[in-house]
């Protein structure tokens, strides 16, 4: 493999990791505070992407430049709203019952997928990035590289830094971190923990929705991608460590790079590489690379 190809493959891995990070960070956030294994996280991705698309298409037909940006806002808002409903109507009152929550969210993901299929049909869809982000950019060593994939890295960095600031520099972040450590004590201090939970759920869901629109711009949006992204998010947080943003970033990097390098070197067995990483991490450090033992 030539140097340029190797550099391209690594950059592909980084850009794919960026997308995985955006989707998995919401999953990790929700788990970190609430210990809820949200098996409907892929559905939040789908809801964000499809609602975003419903807003996007009529505007795009009229050639409005802001169609795509509005789709991002709509996708995030729709996913956040759906997340809030999930937490308040279903998950809130079964707090701490992990198995029950897992089953409820699995059921929810099946229902949502079928409803979206009924509403939007099976035809694959795709967002078209605004002209400023489409096409390719000349990079040293690599040559022309799809601009939108570079945008993914930018979005992931913004999400990562934003989350870090939120968790480490704000009062809400303080409450979230306290809640991760000792939830009953936080409640005893007079903090409205259920409200914090709803806010965190909304944020995590909005990130899934953001991932949905970004992901559906880079790859086609179709039935079944929810399961794929849920699986990826699971692997990413298991490798990186549940509830840790830095861990999620490391997990996303490992999985993204493994997928792309595997695809270039031994395509037939590339899928195995991802799970091999998971097996190794689970064997050596079961709590994940950045996870804290409980």
């Amino acid at each position, binding site marked *: 493999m030539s140097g340029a*190809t190797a550099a391209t493959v690594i950059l592909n*891995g980084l850009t794919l990791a960026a997308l995985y990070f955006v989707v998995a960070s919401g999953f990790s956030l929700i788990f970190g505070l609430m210990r809820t294994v949200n098996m409907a996280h892929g559905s939040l991705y789908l809801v964000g992407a499809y609602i975003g698309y419903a807003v996007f298409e009529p505007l795009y037909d009229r050639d409005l430049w802001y169609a795509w940006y509005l789709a991002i806002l709509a996708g995030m808002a729709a996913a956040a709203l759906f997340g809030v409903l999930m937490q308040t109507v279903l998950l809130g009152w079964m707090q701490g019952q992990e198995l029950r929550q897992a089953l409820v969210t699995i059921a929810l993901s099946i229902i949502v997928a079928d409803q979206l299929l009924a509403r939007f049909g099976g035809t*694959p869809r795709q967002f*078209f990035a605004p002209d400023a982000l489409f096409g390719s950019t000349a990079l040293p060593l690599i040559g022309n590289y*799809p601009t939108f*994939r570079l945008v993914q890295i930018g979005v992931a960095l913004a999400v990562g830094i934003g989350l870090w600031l939120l968790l480490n520099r704000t009062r809400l972040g303080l409450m979230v971190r306290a809640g991760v450590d000792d939830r009953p004590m936080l409640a005893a201090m007079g903090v409205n923990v259920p409200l914090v939970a709803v806010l965190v759920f909304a944020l995590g869901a909005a990130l899934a929705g953001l991932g949905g629109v970004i992901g559906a711009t880079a790859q086609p949006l*179709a039935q*079944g991608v929810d399961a*794929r992204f849920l699986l990826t998010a699971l692997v990413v947080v298991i490798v990186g460590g549940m509830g840790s943003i830095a861990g999620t970033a490391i997990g996303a990097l490992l999985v993204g790079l493994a997928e792309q390098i595997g695809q270039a070197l031994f395509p037939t067995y590339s899928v195995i590489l991802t799970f091999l990483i998971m097996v190794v991490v689970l064997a050596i450090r079961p709590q994940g690379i950045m996870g804290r033992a409980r």
Partner: protein
Amino acid sequence: MFRGLMTRSTAALLAVTASAALAAPTLAQQGGTIRIGSIKTLEGPFATGGQDAVRALTMAFEEVNFTVAGKKIEWVRESSNAQADVALARARKLIEQDQVDIIIGPLSGAEGMALRDYSRTLTGKTIVNGQSAAADTTLRDVSPNFFRFNGDGMQWIAGLGTYAYQKMNARHVALVGGDYAFPYAQVFGFMQEFCKLGGKVTKLWSPLGTTDFASTIASIPKNADTVLVIHGGTDALAFLTQYAQAGGQQPLIAGPVTVDQVVMSARGPHRRLLNNLISAGPIVDDSDDPTWKAFVASYKKRFPDGFAAPSINAVHYYIAAKAVIMALEQVKGDLSNNQQAFQAALAKLEVPTPMGGKVRLDDNRQAIASNFIRRVVDRNGQLFTTQVERFDNVTQTFGMPRAEFLALGSPSRDNPSCPPQ
């Protein structure tokens, strides 16, 4: 309490199972109905194609008003996701629980191999392939209960290798395809012609369901003069979109399912690449044949929300359903004696196709059919394929004696091979 509940529900379950077991034989004995099950992919990468297969089956059954030889057709629909194990489970469910007489399906290559094997274990049941097109399904280890009225992947690409070499002056083709049985067959068919003429081929496989092809695209050799796209469904859409985004410069040619209404109807930057694209395949969208025009008209009338023209999936499921109906009519709906008369009728059938031709079967119950070289044209924003060349009576062995053809080995990711030096 919990224990009491347990016992009660177990008892209820037993009662339900028992009554179902009692009820099942009576259902099967109802003389007036023929139960036909169908399997197509309403989930996974070929969901859109599966949806079109349902439209085609609906049309075929409605044309005879769900009646054949005075018996009522009862249609049990099942879906899979292009994975062999899922298709097999659904087929078992159709045969064992729904007690169907005939299955029409499946849609995808590996599924076809699995159902072929399953059909061998059945007596008095028939599986008529929907459109799965792996070569070995009817080439090696054939099953007496499995009938295929569509060409396989090799037949569907017939003519493309020669066309690429002679008319497009391709000498080194890099091909991208899904890593499973159906693309192997297409690649085998393409290389059969192309390598014989002296062409060289670099193969780039990716697992079925891959959505990020960036590194595959980066691996396309710079000295390849043409890229052959074998992907179908959302995989094709993803590949073409990302090829456009990466600013890919090498000219493309394509296989039968890459250039299909499933992909051509979807919106996106990939459409730029599709215009004027040369491909091989068993159907041509804008054929002037009156049978085809009538078929398209009735498809569009019945399904205004369908594609601009019926997809390859629709055409093949329609032919399969037609074959079943014709054979049932010939034997007057008689499925007794382990369906012997019905299967004999199927084997001898000449089925008129919506393309205006006829399909008949060889000794392995595999179709001998027509194939086309096509060009994509843009008509007011709608993409269609138009005929460039036509080949009739394409056999599964490309006209070679069967033994000689079998000696070439099974299509696989490594067979055949003619890499550049």
